[in-house]
């Protein structure tokens, strides 16, 4: 695909009708919570958009994010839009390898300085960690990241590893894994968390960037509000069961069969912000809670260390019963000791008291 072709030209070349394209624009507008009046503008902007150069950096990751994007429900309009960017560097997807691959990255950086997007998936061993934990072409992940983002327009951290450190950062974090936003401070960053993230969240952010030339509105964790603005719990179709106090107590009891709330089985829906409940997965087929499994909270920071996937949100990770009993025993001993000492003191005072008569006192005056 020639980089000079506009998106409209490419879509037409791939047999996408104008009607289909507008449907995609309308879906994008509604996804991003934009008013319908903006649909023509999105269409106009997308049609005229030159394919932005995208450099995709894969660091300490499992390729799940790429799998989610490319294999979930192809071919769809989202897929085509995604192909319509100029993906100039991506380990898994690019044809080139070795020196040629690295040359492609450097070429894209030179040709599009100040305008290219950097997509990162995977966490990065921090500057203080041994650079040998993860390298590409002999360079540490940290060095490649800093070199690549220097002239980038924006950085998109795809997946929980890139956004928050994810699994590699889980205690005891042997590789000193860090999130992108801990290392890059002078560029606009969007976090699209999730393990993996919802494909539409990525295409939605890209469409927004192509349309308006800037990144969408973000939450406290720099995630696009359109996809991470509401908790799983608040949009869950099982929510009425939570409110009525109807819970599945195990994975095969009557409650589970009736589709009741999974809170007691450890659902992290209340603390998790993501669009699974509304977007669903596999082309809108289903999502974890619909399949009967509690939400793991994969789009939240530290989700791996948040204390047991199958323990309710309100339950502490673990209570040291022995220490607690010890503290109780110590308290009891302390109280008993104080009381006995006080009693002893009182008895002592009573035995050794020296009565004084009024006459004796008067004599002293």
């Amino acid at each position, binding site marked *: 695909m020639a980089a000079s072709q506009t998106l409209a030209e490419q879509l037409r070349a791939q047999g996408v009708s104008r009607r289909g394209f507008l449907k995609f624009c309308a879906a994008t507008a509604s996804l991003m919570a934009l008013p319908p009046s903006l649909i023509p503008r999105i269409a106009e902007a997308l049609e005229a958009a030159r394919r932005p150069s995208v450099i995709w950096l894969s660091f300490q990751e499992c390729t799940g994010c790429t799998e989610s994007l490319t294999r979930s429900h192809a071919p769809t309009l989202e897929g085509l839009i995604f192909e319509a960017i100029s993906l100039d560097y991506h380990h898994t997807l690019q044809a080139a390898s070795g020196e040629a691959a690295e040359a492609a990255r450097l070429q894209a950086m030179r040709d599009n300085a100040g305008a290219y997007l950097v997509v990162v998936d995977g966490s990065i061993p921090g500057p203080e960690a041994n650079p040998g934990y993860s390298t590409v072409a002999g360079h540490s992940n940290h060095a490649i990241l800093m070199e690549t983002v220097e002239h980038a327009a924006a950085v998109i951290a795809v997946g929980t590893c890139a956004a*928050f*450190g994810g699994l590699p950062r889980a205690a005891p974090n042997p590789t000193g894994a860090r*999130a992108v*936003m*801990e290392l890059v401070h002078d560029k606009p960053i969007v976090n699209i968390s999730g393990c993996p993230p919802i494909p539409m969240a990525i295409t939605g952010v890209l469409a927004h960037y192509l349309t308006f030339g800037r990144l969408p509105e973000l*939450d*406290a*964790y720099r995630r696009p509000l359109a996809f991470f603005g509401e*908790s799983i719990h*608040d949009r869950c179709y099982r929510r009425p069961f*939570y*409110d*009525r*106090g109807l*819970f599945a107590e195990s994975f095969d009891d009557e409650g589970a069969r009736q589709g009741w709330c999974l*809170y*007691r089985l450890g659902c992290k829906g*209340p*603390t998790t*912000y993501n669009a699974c409940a509304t977007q669903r997965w596999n082309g809108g087929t289903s999502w974890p809670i619909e399949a009967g499994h509690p939400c793991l909270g994969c789009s*939240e*920071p*530290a989700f791996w*260390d*948040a*204390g047991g996937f199958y*323990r*309710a*949100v*309100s*339950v*502490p*990770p*673990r*209570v*040291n019963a022995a*220490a*607690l009993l010890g*503290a*109780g*025993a*110590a*308290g*009891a001993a*302390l*109280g*008993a000791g*104080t*009381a*006995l000492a*006080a*009693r002893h003191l009182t008895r002592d005072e009573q035995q050794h008291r020296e009565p004084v008569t009024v006459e004796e006192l008067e004599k002293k005056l």
Partner: protein
Amino acid sequence: MNGAMEFLLWTKGPMFQIALGIFAVGMLARLFEILLLGRATNHAEARAGEWLPGLRTVFTRTIPDPGTFRRAPFDVLVGWVWHLGFIIVLLLSVPHVELIAGVFGVSWPALPNPVIDLLTAITLAGLVAALLHRLLHPVKRRISIPQDYLVWALTFAVVLTGYLAYHRLVEPYPLALGMHILSAELLLICLPFTKLTHIFTTVFARWYNGAAFGRKGVRS
């Protein structure tokens, strides 16, 4: 970076242990001290038993006599309303039942959330009314010491943060939940060393009262 979530995990993990530990040491120390000290030996001949009148008083003193209600209807009514609301929300909301089940292994049915929500709002209103009364009533204001306000603030903070967390009025949510858990832990830590101890000592105090009167043959 991951501040809010780390804060929540800290309140659920190490801080919860610390709070529970301080509470266990403090509360058992206070209870053992009080119970082992007992009362001064009464050398007078007993006119009646102690146990039954003691136990009866534990219950009868819970309901105010008509005289008290006439003299201070506000205190009786508002006190009852927010205490009941607090206890029901504490023991019968779903996350609390789960917490108790997770820590102590015993569980019971919970109330639906909208009911808990309403009771929380009533409790908050009751606590605000109680504070206003304390500030505006000339006698109450004079007999109040700083600790009274501390105890009020601790109690109010727990209920308020719970309400904020349930309605997601603080962003991000882990921060809201962490604040709620932390305020509950502060309450737990202060409980053995302030007037909050009444949660546990009320029963003994009433029993001592009833027993003392019973021994004299007086109905209390």
